[in-house]
């Protein structure tokens, strides 16, 4: 077996100013994600919010099946690993018996919008008082680049090798648009992690969603448009550009549903 060839570099910390630290809601672990993948950024953003709100001891997360199946190796909070597509049902079970806790799911497009569509729609329709974080990178990452429900028309994947064809594979599923009108949805927004500005907006959305959970008024849903350099077959920087040029026209950023002033005042 090959030895770990990573070179350890001694850094004289004393002589440097600390400008950015790992929040204690993130574990000191090397992530398994591919270079340039958006999952790491999304994990960090959520965990920063949990740390800043001081709710580490009140937060329970649900990990999906997909690339982020090991989210609990990095997030230093109590977590449950759900069966593929069932995160919203698992989270419902948690939230119903622990209504005073903050509960969120972290799911990819296959998990949330293909195999788990039923659980997603019904949890939101019941207005489960939790946060659903939906990472949309238009591909199945963990299984090696198969077509996702959100794969774009013409986009190549291992199961749409000549590009997604509407007549054969159907249209990309805009599940966020689909669930936004449900009365159980309280706050629905779409952000991205392809630029520093978008990462900041994502963090704000996550923060809002956790704050709204205190109000007990329904489901908050944050779609995060992300990348998959490996399975898209391009370097990370190129993938972020590709995301802007191809993903965002289909999945435009911005709020799909926000609580009205009255709703917030009456909460």
């Amino acid at each position: 077996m090959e030895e770990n060839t990573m070179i350890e570099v001694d850094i004289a910390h004393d002589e440097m100013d600390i400008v950015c630290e790992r929040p204690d809601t993130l574990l000191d672990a090397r992530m398994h994600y591919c270079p340039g993948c958006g999952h790491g950024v999304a994990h960090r953003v959520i965990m920063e919010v949990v740390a800043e709100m001081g709710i580490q001891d009140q937060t329970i997360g649900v990990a999906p099946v997909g690339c982020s199946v090991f989210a609990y190796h990095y997030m230093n909070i109590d977590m449950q690993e759900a069966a593929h597509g069932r995160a919203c049902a698992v989270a419902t079970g948690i939230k119903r018996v622990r209504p005073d806790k903050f509960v969120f799911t972290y799911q990819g497009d296959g998990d949330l919008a293909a195999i788990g569509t039923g659980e997603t729609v019904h949890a939101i329709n019941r207005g489960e008082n939790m946060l659903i974080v939906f990472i949309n990178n238009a591909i199945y990452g963990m299984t090696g680049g198969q077509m996702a429900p959100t794969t774009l028309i013409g986009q190549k994947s291992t199961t749409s090798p000549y590009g997604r064809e509407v007549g054969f594979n159907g249209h990309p599923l805009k599940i966020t648009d689909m669930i936004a009108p449900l009365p159980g949805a309280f706050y629905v927004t779409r952000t991205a992690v392809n630029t520093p500005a978008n990462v900041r907006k994502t963090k704000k959305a996550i923060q809002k969603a956790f704050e709204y959970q205190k109000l007990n008024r329904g489901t908050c849903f944050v779609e995060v448009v992300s990348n998959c350099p490996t399975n898209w077959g391009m370097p990370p920087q190129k993938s972020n550009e590709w995301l802007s040029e191809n993903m965002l026209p289909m999945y435009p950023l911005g709020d799909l549903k926000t609580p009205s002033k009255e709703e917030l005042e009456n909460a």
Partner: protein
Amino acid sequence: MGELRLMKGNEALAEAAIRAGIDAYFGYPITPQSEVLEYLTREGYNRTQTVILQAESEIASINMVYGAAGAGARVMTSSSSPGISLMMEGISYIAGAELPCLLVNVNRGGPGLGTIQPSQGDYFQSTKGGGHGDYRMIVLAPSTVQEMADFVLEGFEIAEKYRNPTLILADGALGQMMEKVELREQLDRKAREIPGWATTGKTKDRDHNIITSLFIQPEEMEQVNIRLQKKYKEIEQNETRVQTIQVEDADIVLVAYGLSARISRKAMEICREKGMKVGLIRPITLWPYPSAAVAEAAEHAKGFLAVELNAGQMVEDVRLAVNGKCPVEHYGRMGGIIMSPEEIVEKIEDLAKRVNQ
């Protein structure tokens, strides 16, 4: 003496669940057990503020059970055969993540959509896996409405002791029939301690709690399996339950559980009146299977007859336990038809004739 009531099996089970202090029930309607969900919805929240939720499917139900159990709640679901099939993936996850919970299958005839009439066609599914991977589920088989009620708390206690799912395997007749039932006192669900492994929010004084069945390194996965198998051995040693009736001097031993055990008992009595030495072994736990009781009877019996409402499932476990010492035969009706005691008597007489030759 507890409170006496005349109740349907399904309702007695639901009442017992409230009194056992369940924190949550997640279910989906399916005949012949919908009364469980209905009764709990009517009574559960009002009396003990327990969570009773009608899910969008059995798949959602079992995963809600997973979530609630992982958060340390005393939680259950119930369904009937096709619905239990839908839950199988979730049950495997629950066993893999070692979560305690109570499941109820009010067995109906199959395969497929089948019939709503009683059956014991889910024996294999209940005792031999059903879901994927090397796991076991404790299976309790009531044969009276009283046991439908009693096995609820008992089922939870075994489940919680071993962090393993327990299944009550009943059938459509037990769910629907009315009998006198003695109910135990109400337990205070809030007095129960939340287990330390549950996901309730990571506090400074402990590492984060993880509920998972994923161990991607094969070496680690094997160790988890070895630990699970050790636990299953322990359950086999400690939790096997069986009732034996007039087996000591029996030439012909009937083996039957649940509804068919009631009918077999009547057949046994008819045979005894005729002067035939017939006994009955009634497995109460179907897993762990009371193999020792069967093996012991095989030391003196001349023949065994497994009586089941299926095509011959438990009979395989009887054969394994008898281990070739004498003939083991099966008598069953399928598709929702219930046998009469007279049919069984006929089979006993036929078997007795052959083994006495």
